[in-house]
């Protein structure tokens, strides 16, 4: 990913997604959204439920197709990028296969794409060490805690060294303590892998702590309201102390104001606008 600086990791160009309803005009999940993510950049999508942030991620992953507009991943159409395995993906649910061990789960994408047994073993061991689960390689998912399962899922998403990681609220189901620890780990992993990340969350501190840029979205129809550049410095420099940093708090309140902005404006249907967003 050294010479790809000219080609953006993700280029979303005036994309709309309308879900057809049985009667009525259908639901506009995304309305004319454009977004560019540079290689190696960490971008969070934040907004209340129904703002289309997960839909946008699914469109980038080509798990869903836009109604209009175009999406390119590393200069290729999203479908091509998926077939070429240009990204790794992690969901809110770890989605591990319960009949496979931790190592077996991490090897899954490699196995499906025809990587040899020895290479698979080696790569899995590397990733298990990266997420700090070396003692659990031969455990089954039901023997692990939620946080550990999610770490396995993240290791699996990194298996093929993607230059782009798509993460859909991967820490959404975890408790706050585990969550902060996982965020610290993700920052470290991102610094090591140099991958671009598109990260869906509904937690403001999470978005600010992790990101180079935070994309604030608004619901019904899903639009990008504003993009906040966090500017907290390089990934490798981000640590636990950053959470006490003044710049961190400044960005925090900037994102919060943007999310709550139209509530102050008093527009009726936007009253519920920031519901579902954690402001703690």
């Amino acid at each position: 990913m050294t010479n790809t600086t000219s080609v953006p990791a993700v280029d979303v160009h005036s994309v709309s997604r309308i879900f057809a309803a049985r009667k009525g005009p259908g639901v506009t999940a995304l309305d004319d959204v454009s977004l560019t993510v540079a290689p190696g950049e960490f971008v969070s999508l934040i907004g209340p439920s129904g703002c289309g942030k997960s839909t946008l991620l699914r469109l980038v992953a080509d798990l869903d197709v836009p109604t209009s507009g175009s999406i390119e991943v590393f200069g290729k159409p999203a479908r091509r990028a998926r077939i070429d395995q240009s990204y790794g993906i992690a969901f809110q649910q770890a989605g591990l296969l319960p009949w496979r061990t931790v190592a077996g789960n991490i090897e899954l994408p490699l196995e499906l794409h025809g990587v040899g047994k020895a290479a698979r073993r080696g790569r899995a061991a590397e990733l298990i060490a990266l997420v700090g689960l070396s003692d659990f390689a031969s455990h089954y998912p039901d023997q692990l805690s939620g946080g550990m399962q999610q770490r396995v899922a993240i290791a699996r998403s990194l298996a093929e060294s993607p230059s782009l990681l798509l993460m859909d609220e991967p820490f959404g189901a975890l408790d706050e303590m585990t969550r902060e620890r996982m965020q610290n780990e993700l920052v470290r992993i991102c610094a090591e892998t140099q991958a671009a990340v598109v990260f869906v969350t509904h937690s403001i501190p999470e978005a600010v702590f992790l990101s180079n840029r935070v994309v604030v979205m608004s619901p019904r129809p899903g639009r990008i309201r504003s993009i906040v550049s966090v500017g907290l410095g390089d990934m490798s420099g981000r640590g636990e102390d950053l959470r006490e940093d003044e710049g961190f708090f400044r960005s925090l309140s900037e994102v919060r104001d943007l999310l709550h902005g139209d509530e102050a404006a008093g527009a009726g249907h936007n009253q519920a606008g920031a519901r579902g967003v954690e402001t703690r």
Partner: protein
Amino acid sequence: MRTAQPGLVQTVLAPIVFGVAVILLWQGLVTGLAIKAFILPAPFAIGAEFAGNLNNVAGGMVVTGRNSLIGLVIGAVLGIALAIVAALARLLDEMAAPIVAALSVVPIVALAPVLYTMFGAGAETARQLVAALAVFVPVYFNTLKGLRQVRPVHRDLMRAYAVTGWQATRAVTLPTALPYVFTGLRVASSLAVISALIAEYFGGPVGGLGKSITSAASSSNYGLAWAYVLGSIILGLAFYCAALIVEKLVTRRSGG
């Protein structure tokens, strides 16, 4: 076995004590009330006949057991294979649904006389086919249901991996379906024995348990008839337990 163990006394001894008590009561009633053997023979008489004709009963169990097993294998393979095809091709599923539904309400053993004329009364084929048909239905339905249990997150994952339909089937769909397949097989295992046995009532070569029960009863040898019934129960239990053990071994991890 993480819960407090109920102990050997409760799990093993209690049913044995209960069983022995029932048999003794039965024996007491038959002798006490002088019930005729053609109505209900005494358990000791049945036991004596069973022990005395052990070779014949065992021979019958082998014949009927082989038919059941062949039927079970054929029915299970067909049921699983067709369920996979139906799960992959929606159209085929919709086409097959009424036929399989019709098949499930046909009293399959009633087909036996027709099959005997098709394959000849001297062959065991008709019985094996009856067993296979009886097995096919629960295996097909359970497998098809299991194949539809794939979690959305796993489906997304497979799409993200851009794998072929067959790869996704092998990696996710089949392992997810496995517990359901084995539930179907467990139900089917005893059905196979019952069907193969009942099919013998309608004709075909002698030697199986069903034929032996009818011939012993028609020659007024009620104790012996019941001895063959006892053999049938043992055979059915053996099939059921074997299926149960295989199920436990295979689905230890996949059960959620």
